[in-house]
């Protein structure tokens, strides 16, 4: 059941103020709704339909909070939490489809090649990447540095810009840039070691 908007805004506020227990509750409130929307999108038949994280998150936002105006900061936090939900959705999808074997490619792409990034096989999830490995890496990272793992999660699953990530983590833009540089290198190493 969807939480009423006020409860959700209260949860966001608690999470923003550093209440870790709100995190789980927030995830539990967001995930089922987001999963429903994403699955409906996968089922729905139509041309030029895009399954983009941004759209799914926006629709989830609409569903949960409607046209209520909430604080910009809370909005960013919402999107950050939705990134976690997206991550779990992607992983669940892949496992359901029996694609949980290792060995896909690295999740990096040259900036110059980004435009021609057409996914292979017309799938909603970019299968050129071994997402399960990325997922495992994020979990490993969580054990040693929660901040870094959150950053990686946001980079892959949120569609948020650097500024928005900074906002939702409560750090400066410069910190995000610096931490991401490290996280990227670490991730590349970690994924290489897995193969």
């Amino acid at each position, binding site marked *: 059941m969807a939480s009423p908007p006020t409860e959700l805004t209260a949860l966001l506020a608690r999470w923003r103020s550093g209440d870790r227990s709100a995190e789980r509750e927030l995830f539990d409130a967001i995930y089922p709704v987001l999963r429903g929307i994403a699955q409906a999108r996968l089922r729905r038949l*139509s041309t030029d339909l895009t399954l983009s994280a941004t759209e799914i998150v926006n629709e989830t936002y609409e569903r949960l909070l409607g046209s209520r105006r909430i604080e910009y900061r809370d909005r960013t936090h919402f999107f950050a939490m939705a990134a976690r939900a997206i991550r779990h959705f992607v992983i669940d999808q892949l496992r359901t489809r029996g694609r949980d074997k290792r060995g896909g490619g690295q999740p990096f792409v040259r900036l110059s090649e980004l435009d021609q990034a*057409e996914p292979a096989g017309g799938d909603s999830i970019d299968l050129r990447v071994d997402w399960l490995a990325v997922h495992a890496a994020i979990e490993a990272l969580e054990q040693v*540095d929660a901040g870094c793992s959150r950053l990686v999660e946001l980079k892959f*699953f949120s569609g948020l810009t650097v500024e928005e990530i900074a906002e939702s983590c409560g750090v400066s833009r410069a910190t995000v840039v610096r931490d991401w540089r*490290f996280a990227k290198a670490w991730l590349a190493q970690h994924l290489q070691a897995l193969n």
Partner: protein
Amino acid sequence: MPQATFQRLRHLFNALADLTPEEREAFLAAQQDLGADTRRQLQQLLQSDEQLAGVTVRSAMNTAYQLADAHAGRSGERIGAYTLRRQLGSGGMGSVHLAERSEGGIVQQVAIKIVHPEQLDATTLARFRLERQVLALLRHPHIASMLDLGELEDGSPYAVIEFVDGVPITVHAREKRLDLRQRLHLLLAVCDAVAHAHRNMIVHRDLKPSNVLVDADGHVKLLDFGIAKPLISQFGAIDVEQTATAQRFLSPSHAAPEQFKGEAITTACDVYGLGSLLYELLCDQPPFSTADRTPGQLEREICEVDPPPPSRRRAADASIEAPPRDLDLIALRCLRKQPADRYSSVEALAQDLRNYLAGRPVEARRGSFLYRTGRFVSRHRSAVALSAVIVGVTAVGFLLLAQQNRATTEQRLRADEMTGLIIDALRSADPSRKGARDLSAREVFERVAGQVQAKPDLSPQSRASLISAIARIDLELGLPRQAEALLDRLDAEALSARERDQARNIRARVLMSAARYDEARLIIASGLAEAASPQQRIPWQIADTQLDFHQGKIDDALKKIDAVPTQEIDAETSEDRLNLRAQILLAQDRRPEALEEFNRLLAAQRKRLGRESPAVFETLGQMVVAEVREGNFDRAEPLNSEQLALAERLFDKNSVRYGRALSTAQLYERYRGNYKKALEYEYRNNAIQREQYGEPNPALARSHFNLAGLHTYLEEYAEADAHFGKAISNAERVWLPSDGNLFLFRLGFAVHLAMNSDRPAEAQKVARVALNSADTYPELKTEEIYLLGLLIDRYGDYSRDPSKANRAALIKALDEAIAGGKGISYKRTLGDFLLKLKTKGIEPTPAATAGSPD
């Protein structure tokens, strides 16, 4: 990998990443405790880093993909008299197909809109029925008309609509290289169609190029009333409210601000839409670009940022010459954030376009100056209130504008940007919110901060220095939390060394006002140590003094403030010095001297900032307190009245400042014995402090303490108990045990328990907590109320066991209390205590009562 190793790696990586290979080697050589394993990992990471330069990540899901369409295969299928040919598109609720009817050798092409069978929920159906009804009603040469409607066998409703074989108006204008007049005439035809809809109480709500098509003959047609909204609640047999709850099917790049905000949709929404069409016709660019923006960013820009005039957005290879100023103004007026600020109707817009075409003066020019300099003026209750806000805003704004004396080009640019941002913020003021309330300085700077974040064209340097400047202003406005939030997202790298120093100083002061003294102390120590010149040291010396003062080290503070050079410091710093010195003197009960300093300060501030400035407000407040403590209520009252009036004009009646002025009024009303009136003032202050800062906060702690005191005077002890409790619980969370306020609150409560409630045991318990703090922090023993604490402790002993020894100890404490204190409230409290003890047969020794309070 253990966490410690990981963190070590991370720090080393960060330190090494930007170094040259030689520097890296030197650095690593110096890390002798580094294991071979970690060393190798580090090298691998740095190697990866090099390989990953210029590389980004693939997102898990943001790529477009295609799926087969249920209706796409319908080609050849017949619907009524029509044969489906191909699909034209599909949208939120259905698909549109091209179909033909052949009759008497003449082929008629139509568009058929079919609702997806899987989308046949009540809301979509209601919306579809509404659109059909709307189209049935709207017959106009420039609106694509509805020809027929019905239901398919599977129950899907459909509508047959005139087929427009054309291209979006903007594409048409560009491809045919239409000149300005041709473009305007085309738009006038669209205005005509929209005005027709408005006369029929319909708002289109989704005016964008792809909904305004021009066919091969140059005829323009308005399509897609899919999200149109009737302005009446009952439309034919359809209850409009039902569809209003439907999801927002918005085209984000063309939606008006009120559509995002969920505010009332009126015909002004279409004026905005027409304005965005005009804008794009004038410069080949939409007012807000969707490129590189997330939906959230776009929404924020649409709601908060004014687009530049089309003439400035025009690309070099635009298909049209630069539009004249009048057309810029007409477009921008349509695109104003507030519906009420746009043209009052589509007809008015059309009329202004005709004015331009006929060479008459355009309406858009009128009022544009006012609008630009703060449209505010015409919209607010009184011009006086406006000028007060502007003065208030500029007074604080000048904190940074004044620094532009060393006018390098860059700094001038920032001053311009700041001025621009302030004006933008005033312009985006929403007069409908919270009644006709005037914009407070706080709100203005919240808006300015928002603008700084949202404006994409600011350089990182400008953004950083503006954010730091606003953080400072927030602090001056008594908003430490907001200031800290801004500082947290400050990109310090982008600041000059001097600005970085200032930003750190602001942070130290923010920490101080949050009673985070240890953190503040660290920053101040490094600020003092790193100051490059005696001048640069001064702000840190003042911060250092302030910190001592905050922590109750009054004597140290006086020594430090007297060591600050008085020569060669700028006016502002000199005022900071005077102010702090006066406060220190006040804390030492040297009130006449303090008042002299305050008078000097007031004169300096009035000279520099004018009679109405936040700084003057602060000084007046200090003076009121000093006069009250001296017992000069009649001198305090006019100062306080001036203060209240200033607070209302500069901030507003819900501001923290206004609350504080109310609390000051409470003070002398209390001493005059007007407790009810005092209570009323203090409750208003309490509500304001709670609303603005939440719990816990120092102002709220003080306010509860005041309320508790007032309730005891009125003998409303249950209320007093409650407020003492809240005062202490707030105080415990914001102040350290060494704090004088916390000490005072505890002992105040103890006095209350002992005297009013006759609960000596509980009183003793509370007092003991305070007395223990005083043993740990001896400076607390210099507070007058410490003597009352000792007295209550003895009284507790005596009440439990009225032995001779306890009685003697009590009388001794009483004598000392009488000899020890001079303050007005101290004497009053002690006097009450004496009366109370008298009823129990306890009296001080006669020698001690000579010159006693009663």
